[in-house]
């Protein structure tokens, strides 16, 4: 953003003020995440930088809290991580299948009542989570699924499908339907056409929808708080309990792991988005 030479001085000043504001906002966005890294290696039990850490004294750093996270006797993180992954994986599979199939129907130009149905399908994303939580809890309690993995997986499918529906319909909006007609005219049945032609082409959209569904489930705490029993504890629930009772550095160790995980997901999602845009011929 170099300024042209003829820029008048007061616009020049304004331009630098603007850049400073932008820098401050970016700092505000990203800096809080980086506080967690160093503090999770704190040798002390405090949640602020010790004098040793400020001097970069190696003795002030340790892996103590990571060990505590993995081997700690009272720590429920192992069970929570296992539950979180199981629930998120099944919820993702469910959301992706239901959401992709529905998106295929929705993007057909023959679909009746498109607007109304779309509104129902993405409503779990619009309705505040607390209300979804109450409603889903009433259903699961009646169906006898409260405090079961199945109940939580179903709840997360409800919350995850809107993301899949939106991303896949967006991908399908640039989809050339003549290729499926070509396949049909060559004698392929619809299922075969879908598996061999449509799916490979919309795969980036499906996967990024799946990533959204995965993150939604993995990070979801409001609905799980209503549904989960002691057996179904998840990472967000443990963090929630930990943050409410006492901020321990072990939570920061877990948080660091979660940031690394979200970085990986971000990179994957970005790569997929770019590939998808290339495939759809959107050049930027």
């Amino acid at each position, binding site marked *: 953003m170099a300024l042209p030479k003829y820029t008048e001085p007061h616009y020049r000043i304004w331009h630098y003020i*603007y850049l400073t504001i*932008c820098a401050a*906002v*970016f700092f*505000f*966005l*990203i800096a*809080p*995440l980086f*506080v*967690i890294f160093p503090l999770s290696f704190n040798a002390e039990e405090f*949640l*602020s930088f010790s004098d040793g850490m400020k001097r970069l004294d190696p003795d002030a750093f340790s892996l103590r809290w990571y060990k505590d996270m993995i081997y700690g006797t009272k720590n429920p993180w192992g069970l929570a991580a296992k539950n979180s992954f199981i629930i998120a994986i099944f919820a993702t599979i469910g959301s992706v299948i*239901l959401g992709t*199939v*529905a998106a295929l*129907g*929705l993007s057909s130009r*023959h*679909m*009746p009542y498109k607007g109304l149905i779309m509104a*129902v*399908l993405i409503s779990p994303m*619009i*309705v*505040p989570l*607390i*209300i979804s*939580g*109450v*409603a*889903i809890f*009433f*259903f699961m309690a009646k169906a006898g699924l409260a405090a079961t993995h199945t109940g939580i997986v*179903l709840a997360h*499918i*409800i919350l995850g499908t809107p993301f899949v*529906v939106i991303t896949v*319909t*967006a991908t399908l909006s640039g989809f050339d339907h003549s290729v499926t007609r070509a396949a049909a005219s060559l004698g392929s049945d619809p299922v075969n056409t879908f598996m061999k032609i449509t799916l490979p082409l919309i795969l980036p959209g499906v996967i990024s929808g799946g990533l*959204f569904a995965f993150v939604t489930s*993995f*990070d979801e*705490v*409001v609905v799980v708080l*209503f549904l989960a029993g002691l057996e179904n504890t998840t990472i967000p629930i443990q*963090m*929630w309990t930990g*943050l409410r009772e006492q*901020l321990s550095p072990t939570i*920061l160790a877990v*948080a660091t792991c*979660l940031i690394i995980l*979200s*970085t990986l997901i*971000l990179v994957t*999602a*970005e790569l997929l*988005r770019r590939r998808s845009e290339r495939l759809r011929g959107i050049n*930027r």
Partner: protein
Amino acid sequence: MSSETKQILTTDGIPLEVSLKKAEKKNKIKAFLLVAPLLFFLIITYVFPIGDMLFRSVDDKMVTQMLPKTFKAMENWDGQELPDEEVFAAFHEDFIKLVEDKREGKLSTQLNYTKNGFKSIIKKLRRKSKSFEEGNYKEQIMSVHKRWADVEYWRAIQRRAPEFTGQKYLKGMDMYVNEEGKIVSVEEDRRIHRVLWLRTLEIAFFVTVFCFLMAYPIAHLLATLPMKYSNLLMICVLLPFWTSLLVRTASWMILLQQQGIVNDFFVGIGLVADDNRPEMMYNKTGSYVAMTQILLPFMVLPLYSVMKTISPSLMRAGKSLGGTPFVAFWKVYFPLTIPGIGAGCLLVFILAIGYYITPALVGGASGTLISNQIAFHMKSTLDWSFASAMGLMLLSGVLVIYWLYNKIVGIDNIKLG
């Protein structure tokens, strides 16, 4: 003219029009069948339960079913003076049955919602009713406690006769039906819910404003920078977006605590004294700061996607026609970004109005929102019908905003990342 032309037939001899309609219908059914599994899944597990909330919020059958004979006998009572023996006898009969089923506690909780003071007198009645003699129940019940001889309490019981009630909604707005059947507000110092609604609106509004003020410049920068720089900066927006909400809240708890880094910094630059560190967490400030940072990406992304489509030559044209950069920006660029502003603001506002986790952790008592109250009634007081009523009040507010969103941007235009 069409009657003169011959009907076009397909090879099967069916008129083309009919055949096309048939094919169209088949396609419609096919498309619908694809959507059907998800649609029915959501209707059963999600839409019906929300309807169930509506039902629960007005449902008042419990007391109706607990005192069937009493309410039957009360039908010909005018409510002016104490009811006669018939009502007392019916009440006694119902009550004995409740005591046998050990449900009189529930009755006292329910009646206490209507009028304070029922808890103790029902307990007393249960003890005394064991030694009641047959006949003349009016005298015997009235002798248990003087409140049983107060017509106000009998009117309170009568008010619970209908199977449906809107009183939970009134309670959500700090109103109730008084003895004369009029809707009035509760005393000034007990209006907790109105305070919460206003605070929720206030926090959601200001968080939206802050997000907008912060997001606009950086979205503009991201949209105008060359690709290789903007991609790098985009990570600053997307990484928080993908990071767990609890992780981000945790980092704010570390930053804002009294011995935290922000306070250390303020002390370091001499802004505040070391022994007088301000409370930045467990109050409204905490809610504002944390919610703004957490919701900021939801404002940046729609703004960015709109700004990306605005050609830079428009600004140049504006300037070349004699506008100063500010005029060109205000008259040309800004109006073009309004769809993005609308989308971002409504998205952030809707998310903020239903926020629960962050205010519960960093908001303290003065920074909690209506969602926290709903969760409190779901889990602690177990007054699920009240939680449902407040949830639906919140939902109807959100639906109005959502309707506006649909009018301005259209739901099909929602973009993620």
